[in-house]
């Protein structure tokens, strides 16, 4: 053959193919209204978190124009050490100055929520990524090799799943200083070695028995080649889907731990609610009076969690052909 058959560099072709599959995926995805809603909410929160640095500046230029000194000293929009001296009693109800009110320490709730947003993302995605990487590799290897490796990891998963994860994290919080990253790591590992391995292994098993694996084997492919070139690419969509669902779990766990005051995180949505609870604003009739202390943060947790869940389920219908419409 004299002519070059492939006219473009290979990477360019692959990029094109990739873009094309992305586009068809998006076509399918667009039909799932709930998933699009989820994606919308996620994008909203991402933007919400990203514009945080602008928020104090804007507020300063509107409300503190005449008192730059006070703004400097009390840093009224600082999520951790802020205080607004011009308001008589804290917590104060939402006003123009503080769109979501202030907490008992005089901090601006909106700035607290905004400040926490990127942290929730980082935590959720890190934890989910760890989970999925562990789960995919172990699941694929267990399915492919079987035998001792399989038995070991399956029993390990059994034991990990035996622990009520929240209770275990609570115990761990007593001797591990649960910072954001450590928490992400632990949550990620707990679910990575647990249930997700089972699911991904089951999927990998269905891949393993398909003839193209045998075809590769009969050509002389090594075990690692088959696992990484054939099995993992085929379970990757499912892994990605579980990653989305795991983000939900991780954010939820973090919020609960923070709410119980067991995580060493200075500021997060869970911490905001915990603040309200520990200073007694969730008791009896004051619940309704001081709604801004718990409602916005709680709604944020719920919304972000469900957004990732919606996204995950939307993806599931693309990834899992059995759920597609005929």
């Amino acid at each position: 053959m004299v002519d070059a058959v492939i006219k473009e560099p290979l990477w360019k072709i692959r990029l094109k193919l990739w873009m094309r599959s992305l586009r068809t995926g998006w076509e399918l995805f667009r039909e799932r209204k709930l998933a699009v809603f989820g994606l919308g909410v996620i994008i909203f929160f991402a933007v919400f978190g990203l514009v945080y640095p602008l928020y104090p500046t804007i507020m300063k230029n509107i409300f503190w124009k005449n008192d730059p000194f006070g703004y400097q000293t009390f840093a009224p929009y600082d999520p951790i050490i802020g205080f607004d001296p011009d308001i008589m009693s804290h917590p104060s109800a939402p006003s123009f100055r503080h769109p979501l009110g202030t907490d008992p320490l005089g901090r601006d709730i909106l700035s607290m929520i905004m400040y926490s947003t990127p942290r929730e993302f980082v935590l959720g995605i890190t934890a989910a990524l760890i989970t999925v990487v562990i789960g995919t590799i172990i699941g694929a290897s267990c399915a492919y090799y079987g035998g001792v490796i399989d038995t070991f990891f399956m029993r390990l998963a059994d034991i990990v799943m035996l622990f009520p994860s929240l209770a275990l994290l609570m115990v761990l919080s007593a001797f591990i200083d649960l910072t954001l990253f450590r928490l992400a790591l632990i949550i990620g590992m707990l679910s990575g070695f647990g249930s997700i391995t089972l699911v991904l292994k089951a999927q990998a098993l269905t891949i393993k028995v398909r003839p193209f694996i045998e075809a590769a084997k009969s050509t002389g492919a090594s075990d690692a080649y088959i696992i990484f070139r054939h099995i993992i690419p085929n379970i990757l969509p499912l892994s990605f889907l579980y990653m989305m669902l795991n983000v939900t779990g991780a954010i939820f766990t973090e919020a609960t731990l923070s709410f119980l005051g067991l995580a060493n995180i200075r500021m997060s949505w869970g911490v905001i609610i915990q603040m309200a609870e520990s200073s007694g604003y969730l008791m009896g009739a004051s619940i309704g009076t001081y709604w801004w202390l718990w409602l916005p943060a709680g709604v944020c947790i719920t919304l972000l969690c469900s957004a990732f869940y919606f996204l995950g389920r939307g993806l599931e219908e693309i990834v899992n052909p059995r759920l597609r419409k005929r």
Partner: protein
Amino acid sequence: MLKFLGKRVFQIVILLFIYVTIVFWLMEALPGSFLDKYLMNPKITPEIRENLKRQFGLDKPVFTRYLYYMKNFLVLDLGVSFSYFPKKVSSIIFERLPRTVFLFATSTLISYAFGYNLGKRSAWRRGKVVDQVTTFTGIIFWTIFLPLLAIFNIWLFGVILGILPLNQFIEPNLWRHVSFSAQDLFLKLLLNAFIFLIVFLIAMIISRGLKTIAAKRILLYTSSIVTIVISVSIWILSGKAIYAWDIIKHMVLPVFTLTLYSFAGSMLVMRDTMLDVIREDYITTAKAKGLPDKIVRDKHAARNALLPLVTNFVISLGFTISGGIITETMFSWPGLGRAYLEALSQQDSPLLIGLLVFTGVFVLFAHLVADILYAFLDPRIRY
């Protein structure tokens, strides 16, 4: 079947052994000890501390204590609690167990009944508005931040509507002068509910033999109404009805919250499996046989989709403790979850280990039950 069960029990015992070991060493690794808080107390001299230490068995080396613990565990002795000294861990657990289990059993039962029905309908009308709306609300409730839901419910029903008590197990003012304990009454209530359940089940089994649907309904309704009337009158006659009512009233809000939270999970599971089943050829066959839609849906599709739901149900019952922590904290409900939180803050390690171990046993037992149930529901599975 027996062979399989034997194998499974053997597996469970080994798993449990490893689990208990891990839990024990995990607790040993906890920094500090229960006695640390007496360090600052001038009234407790070092001698007394030594004495306490000996009493608690903390003077022996860790490994001896581990062996000791395992030996005791074999005879189901979970040791003595530090903070409730000299109460046994097992007695604390069994005192609180009924409250937690009742809370969860009721809410799980209700939510699965709801979830089963809703999931079934939603899958059958997939893609329609009904389906979209149920799925949407389902996911929102499934991912809702549980404390938020609890606070919201307290606010709505306790504060705004004012029809339900906010939290706690009983109203202390009411119970100040009574001679009997709330626990006793609660157990009797449980017994009552249990009897009602049994009567209902028997009526169900009998009604299977009946020919017409009307007869079935009459039998079910009369038997349940009669039992309810009899038990209510007994409560009134004994004069304890207001106290019983008090307990029930306190239970409504936590049960409602938990039901709301967990019905979504079962509904989504039901919907997903149902969607799988609907594509099967036997569903098309059933339709081709000229069966009405409702029968195809209920008898053919839902029956097959039931299997994963049942496993899910049994296993979710097993996880009552960790689920209980938040709910019980929010509603000041003195159950196992609260006990766990208290034990953690008190560093009462025997109680902590005991609670974790107990959960483990409970979960493993639930798995076993799920296996057996599965074999009954799915004729293809013969162990």
